[in-house]
């Protein structure tokens, strides 16, 4: 029989049957890969990076807490509002280690993670691990009643947004410079967002939790007060 012959000799050429078998294997592999892809896409929830949250209107600038007040918890927006002499920052409440919610501890003047003990200073720097970076923060905007954005958090470097009517202390002037008043290019010109200009009535603060700025890596000593 020819079948016996085919079995006994060494197959050198790609026969029709072998070609079809290999094609079938390849097609099955492609189908499996595609099915996996389809399943993953199907199971992927409809969220994109940075899509979390929305705009939170914090009201008139005049209603802000004092510069020495403890951080204000905004549960709906998942952030703590911290006001220092340098300005206002909205820190994400979630620990940068493994997502437990931080609590402000008055006794140690730090944000303390109840899960693994990371601590962050009032200005968001990492004080003790196991977290490896400072607190994440959300973009803060200073807006006029007609919607014009006067100043907003630097999306690259983070840092507080200066509030008009508060003179920054020398020690925090460095971090104050990280905010970028959008209506001016030169720090010498008095303009909206400048600390020496009193705030006009009706200026409001808006926190945009859709834009998250990752905390700075590394550790710093706890800075009390800020």
């Amino acid at each position, binding site marked *: 029989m020819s079948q016996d012959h085919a079995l006994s000799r060494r197959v050198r050429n790609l026969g029709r049957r072998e070609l079809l078998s290999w094609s079938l294997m390849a097609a099955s592999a492609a189908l499996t890969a595609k099915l996996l892809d389809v399943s*993953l896409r199907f*199971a*992927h929830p409809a969220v994109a990076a940075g899509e979390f949250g929305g705009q939170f209107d914090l009201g008139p600038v005049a209603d802000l807490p004092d510069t020495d007040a403890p951080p204000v918890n905004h549960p709906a927006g998942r952030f703590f509002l911290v006001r220092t002499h340098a300005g206002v920052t909205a820190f994400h409440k979630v620990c940068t280690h493994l*997502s437990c919610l*931080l*609590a402000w501890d008055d006794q*140690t003047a730090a944000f303390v993670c109840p899960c*693994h003990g990371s601590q962050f200073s009032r200005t968001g720097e990492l004080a003790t691990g196991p977290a490896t970076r400072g607190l994440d923060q959300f973009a803060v905007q200073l807006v006029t009643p007609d919607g014009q954005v006067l100043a907003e958090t630097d999306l690259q470097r983070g840092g507080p947004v200066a509030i008009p009517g508060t003179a920054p202390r020398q020690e925090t002037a460095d971090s104050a410079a990280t905010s970028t008043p959008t209506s001016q290019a030169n720090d010498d010109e008095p303009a909206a967002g400048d600390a020496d200009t009193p705030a006009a009535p009706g200026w409001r603060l808006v926190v945009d939790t859709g834009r998250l700025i990752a905390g700075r890596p590394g550790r710093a000593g706890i800075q009390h007060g800020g």
Partner: protein
Amino acid sequence: MAVDETSLEAPRQPAAEIMRTDAGVLDRLARSLAAGMGLVELRALLRGDPPTERPSPRYRAHTHSLLLHLRPRFYAQASTRFTHTFRLGFFTTFFFIVEAITGLILMLYYVPTPEGAYESIWRLMTRVPFGELLRDIHRLAAEGMVIFAFLHLLRTFLTASHRGKRAFTWLTGVFLGLLTLALTFSGYLLPWDQLAYWAVTIGTSMAAAVPLIGDELNILLRGGAEIGADGLLRFYLLHVILLPALAALVLGVHYYGIARRHGISLPADVEEGDLAPAARAEATRRIDFLPDLLIHEAFLVCVGLLALIAASIFLYDAPLETHANPQRTPLETEAPWFFLWVQGLLKLGDVTLLGVAVPLALVALLLAVPYLDRSPHRRLRKRPLALALTTAGVAALLTLSYIGTPRFGIALPPATVIAQTLAPEEGVGPLRSIPFDALPVGVYVVGVDDPAGLPATFGRVFAEYGRQVKLASERGRLPDAQAFLIVQEWQQDLKRVTLRIGWTDAQRGSRQTYERDLYLHRQRAGEAAP
């Protein structure tokens, strides 16, 4: 049992007769149901008599019946010695089956939504007959499964039963261990209490630390940026369908190697030792599955069920904390005990390195054990390295678990620690254990009021409170401490208990106060009204 020859021979004759008479109908029925074994054979099985027909209908049953086909026909006597296996694999499987059955029953009442989950567990615990018992058994058997799977792994390694053709069975065993952990962890979220919510938040955040695919994995598991309705449903489906199905499949593969390919290993002494020929013959004597092993397993199942039920009734209550609150992480959030070592690792440093890479490396090491272990010996006294590594590994796990406990390395303020010890934010604690009527209304001052003059349980808690305040004061953590325990009648059948601790803050030079309030109702969880 001493049996004389006549009684051994006696049943054979009637068997043939019964076949030929009208009673043969029953016999044929028995044969069709019991994989070919007739009435006489079944009786002989229970009596421990030898097979009544040739060829043995018992071995034939292993060929004809699917379920018996999965089981071996016999083991060597030495393999069945209790001190060789301790029945650890058997009980792991037993717990898995208990989980499947109790889980199925619990699914009658469980609702996998954030609105319904917690309430459905409450309903189960308070208004469904035996609901709390079933939940306790389900939870206890899950923990038993983790413990026994771990001990089974240790036993297999220490008796060197993982080499050669058993290597593949070892691999499937490691995967079964991982599936066991995944099953337990996925079930953790389902009650939707604080414990569950935050443990799973941490777990999925660890997934996010996996390089490249981490964020995708995290979001696939959570079903969104935070755990919500989608995440709960995903964990539910993992817990009740995907993971059990996978575990059953891998368990089948794992067991098939034992039943059909290589059996249970012989003890090392039998395989390597100098045994007298008679002793060796005894050690390798066949013990048939039918009936000896089957009856032994039925006995073990009874012991296991009795232990589970008794422990669930008298010793163990599955915890249920307060309803999940995505807005608040409770103090001293804790991983399940079998993941405390991971929590310990996480406290030590980088998530990607210690939370992901180290556990993955550990799994890879376990998978590679049969190929790394080149020792020609099986007896433990000739494998000092294996023994040392096992001891070191277990010691490391225990140490890391200790580091993982909530109090280790997390500096809570001293007053908070005292309040947390007496009345933790989650869980019960001594203060909440005081019966409602044993809480006398009044203001009790530490160091002034004598605990001996108070009702017994209340007095003990108050004394403990005083002791801790005194200790912290003496160690300088609470200078000039003043502590009160205040019990007020707040509403009808509701008392407010306040722990108030005052001290002088040396740094600020001012007086500080810490307070924790508890509201205790006469009808607390599971406590019947008088």
